[in-house]
């Protein structure tokens, strides 16, 4: 049986790398944020995790913000606010 050569249909990625800062070693006194994707129970998950971070890591403040809905990106204003006020932000994703 003969052979044929076919092209790969998969798209290729071309991107510049952005360095992600390391997680802080000390969380004492820091402000953490939760970007709520509005899916059910993320608010409870964020609340429980925020409490743990206060009690066990000495986090000073927890900021909780909700996107408008689960299926569209957070507004630039919301992202800017969290970037300005928080040391680390936990962004809810998926379900």
């Amino acid at each position, binding site marked *: 049986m*003969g052979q*044929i050569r076919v092209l790969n249909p998969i798209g290729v*990625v071309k*991107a510049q790398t952005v360095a*992600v800062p390391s997680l802080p070693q000390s969380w004492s006194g820091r402000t953490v944020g939760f970007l709520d994707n509005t899916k059910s*129970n993320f608010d409870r998950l964020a609340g429980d995790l925020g409490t743990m971070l206060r009690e066990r890591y000495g986090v000073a403040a927890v900021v909780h913000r909700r996107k408008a809905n689960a*299926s569209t990106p957070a507004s630039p204003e919301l992202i800017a606010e969290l970037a300005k006020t928080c040391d680390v932000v936990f962004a809810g994703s998926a*379900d």
Partner: protein
Amino acid sequence: MGAQGVSALPLLVVEHPLGGERPEAIARRAQQAFEQLHALIAGSGTSDRTEPTDRASGATAASNRPPTAEADLAAPATIDIPDDPIAILDAFTERNWADGLPIIAPTAERVSAMLDGRDAAKSLGIMPPLWRQVTLEKLAVNAVMAGCEPRAFPIILAAVEAMLDRAFNLYGVQATTHPVAPLLVVNGAYGRQIGLHGGSGCFGPGFRANATIGRAIRLILLNVGGAWPGRYDMATQGSPAKFSYCIAENEAASPWGPLAEGDTVTVYGGEPPHNVNDHVSTTASGILTTVCDTAVSLGSNVGWYFSQSQLLVVLGPEHARTIADDGFTRADVQRFVYEHARLPLGRLKLAGMWGMHDWPAWMNAVADPEALMPQVPSPDDVFVAVAGGSGKHSAVVPNCTFSRAVSRPIKPGGD
């Protein structure tokens, strides 16, 4: 994340599902997340957790496990395979390059014919969810695989451009648990010329242009965008419309002119068509009452994210003629559906997406449980097209609630 230039982003993955779980189960998931975070901080954890535990996924056999993004990109630019239809299907299936159906082998010759002189390296942008380059070559490869004729390529290009428009929210459409599929509604002489069908059975099956153009779009979303079922395409159940979803409008049968002027493709993120069966009405009001009742349900996504909610009404020619003969313009149809495709507030509060809804302040202020709430922001968000053949049937296509329809001109002669 890597495709957008962000590597090694820490991920905390908790057991799925989260929704519907009791507080103690949520607390357990918070503990899971905290332990992962602690490990990451201590340097003993990994940020490469991309396979969450999901007791509902049902994936068992290796052949049913979704491909990995890394495996995708590790594959060579070309492969040599036996020139046999079954061997070709096997090769593409085992690499998760196909949609489950036989494909046309994308040889360099066939891809070149599809490109028809266009610059293969030209990119239309990047496609979510994996943000891969949308080069004309890759679009042509997938169009060949789908069985498209080269003269279909301008329609595919216009449709992809439309999907990449921010208003369409392709990322949401690709990644959601909703079964949304991009429906292509093609207007103009070029579509008819290449065989696109808008008459009897237009939604399928039977018409090569409809079937292959719609299929090419799906293969592009799978292979270029990277949204594979269970991996980034998280549609809980999917839908037959995700195989292929493309029609021409039956402009000859429309009393009101085309949905869009000229050679145009409109891409609309919708559910499969919901049949509107009305064999008895002889008035516009009668038919449109049936349309409106079909258009609303507690399980529909339309209306929950209000600003992006849209409805598409595809009237069969006989229904359209009855409505028009009753003195209705297209604008009258839009207004009637806007005013009457509604559910009472009290019913919306029962379930569906209540509590997750994204409504403007005036809607949130409504207190009367009998108040009929609009599904879409305005009559202009009700699209009215005519398609199909003989028979007293129409269709409603609810949108996914987080994507707005986008139209683009078809350029048969290229850029």
